[in-house]
């Protein structure tokens, strides 16, 4: 597996978090900013997924009913982070949808996706 081990998800997620944060600070284009916001969400969700299988070398998904599983209860992955990340994904989807709708309206109005030009167009 090498460095792409499940155990390393946490480090990858934090690296992704800071890369996308850097992207947010530097990108001049609105679309790029939106993409980086989506990336930053993904990184946090990756981090949460790691929490469900922490200290558990062979995690079993907690969705199959099997009496044998109940005997090795310590191998079952923690279902809470999965449920919570699902909620977070849905909320993120809704918010991003609205942001893109707003961007669409602005784009029709001013015909630009540049933060600076939009700011000037708005008079500030």
């Amino acid at each position, binding site marked *: 597996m090498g460095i792409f081990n499940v155990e390393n998800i946490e480090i990858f997620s934090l690296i992704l978090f800071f890369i996308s944060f850097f992207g947010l600070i530097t990108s001049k284009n609105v679309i790029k900013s939106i993409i980086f916001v989506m990336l930053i*969400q993904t990184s946090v969700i990756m981090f949460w997924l790691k929490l469900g299988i922490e200290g558990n070398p062979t995690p079993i998904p907690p969705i199959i009913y099997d009496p044998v599983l109940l005997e090795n209860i310590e191998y079952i992955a923690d279902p809470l982070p999965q449920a919570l990340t699902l909620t977070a994904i849905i909320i993120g989807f809704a918010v991003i949808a609205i942001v893109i709708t707003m961007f669409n309206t602005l784009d029709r109005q001013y015909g630009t996706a540049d933060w600076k030009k939009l700011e000037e167009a708005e008079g500030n």
Partner: protein
Amino acid sequence: MLTFFVIIPILLAVLIFTFSAKTKAIKIIAIVFQSALFAASLYLVGITREADVVTFVGSDDLLGIVLRANSLSAIFVLLTTFIFLAVSIYSYSYRDERDARTFWFLMFLLEASFIGLFLSGDLFNIFVLIEVSTLVTVILTMYDRKNRNIFHGKVFLLTNLVSIQFYLLGLGYIYRITGALDVERVGEVLATLDDRNLLLPYVLIMTSIAFKNTLIPFFSWTPKVRIYPKSPTVVAAVMSGLQAKTSLYLFIRFQEMFAPIAAYEIFLAIGIVTGIFGAVMAICQKDIKMILAYHTISQIGLITVGISLTNGLSHVGGLYHIVSHAMFKTTLFLSAGIISHSYGTSNVYEIRGVMKRMPVIGIATLAAVLGITGAPFFIGSVSKYFISYEVTPLIMAVTVALSFGTIISFIKFSSIFFGHSVLEGSTPKAELCKTIPIAIMGAICFVGGIFGTQLIYFLLRYNVEIQWWSYVQKSLIFLASAGVGYLLYNYVIKGNAALARFGEMNFSFRSICASMGVFMALLLLLMGR
């Protein structure tokens, strides 16, 4: 029982959306429902004095959703229901536009999410409710189709989305450390832990909350968006009166939860700088709603100072100032809406003679202005008295400076009351349903000052006393600073071009994100020493 506080506004929203707001009957039902909710939250404040009220939704162990009301959250619920009651009476006579029912659907959804936020005992639910309220807020501020402000709405939404990711990441660390998301359980576990483990989650969560709170590096974007002159009056009032309080509530809760490492001194300093900066920015504005908006930031700084001071009475003063700020800021925004609608402009230099043109609203607004500046016998004087009670001379000087800034910005605001109105002709008929809530809240600004100690005892369960001699001293300081402020405003500040340019200052999206990173890094450095 607590479930009903969240469900009833949602039911009301659905009811209005289904049966349309065009009939007066629906609006009367809304007012009746809101009054019932207000009465229920008064009852809630009464019973949480004895013990906390806990309601389990689903299973009654730590896995279920918990709603928990203690004496603090009960006050916030009371404020929410009161302001929404006032707002629904205020808008009773609105001429119905095409989309009124969607508007009220969103408004009551917002109320439900605020109440849920105050009552929720689960950290993840708090995240969900913050997101819901942000989303609804943005849609509401852009509701007026003719002059909406999409650009600032988008910046608002995107920056909030980024800041909430910090919260979620911090929450992940909390879950890893404690294995729980229930507020009380997490608090218990955190109290037993080593400080080093708590540092990172604390810094991440506080970055997010300080951003929502519009503390110093993040001050610039809020008024532009939240209470932008273009957003509907009712929304502006709810934003400044309540939405600013949700983040303060979270701030108090998280400071309590992280009590072992909570950085009171750092936030005290941040609060001071925020207060001064907000006041300076408020002085530089020329739009009455913008003055009020920036002034909200200054007051949030003052409240942060109050709740970061660890002696008991300052904390009480900070909490009472939250209540009083909700009262006078809602009054001011509602009346600013009426005034700017009546004059057709919201430029502070063009509006004159409000007292003559609409006396009742003028008097209520004046009461709110006196309350906000901390004039003796008004509500602000009591809360400011307790914030600066038994503090070091330095903090004392700071609070005096803060209220001095408030006084100057409201001397500017007060110029609308007097003078000759440019608009001649008949005064418009005052609408009763708009006047009543403003008059009542204006009266509370006065009554809350006279019966300040009794109100504090009822709301906060603190038996406090005002010593007459020091109260007189504070009043003398107020009078002196009002005099100095009047002279300073008229001879130095008025028409100063440099200041006006300073007031135009604005942050771009990128610099807001950068300031988030800088804030986090600085907090980490200062606390990790």
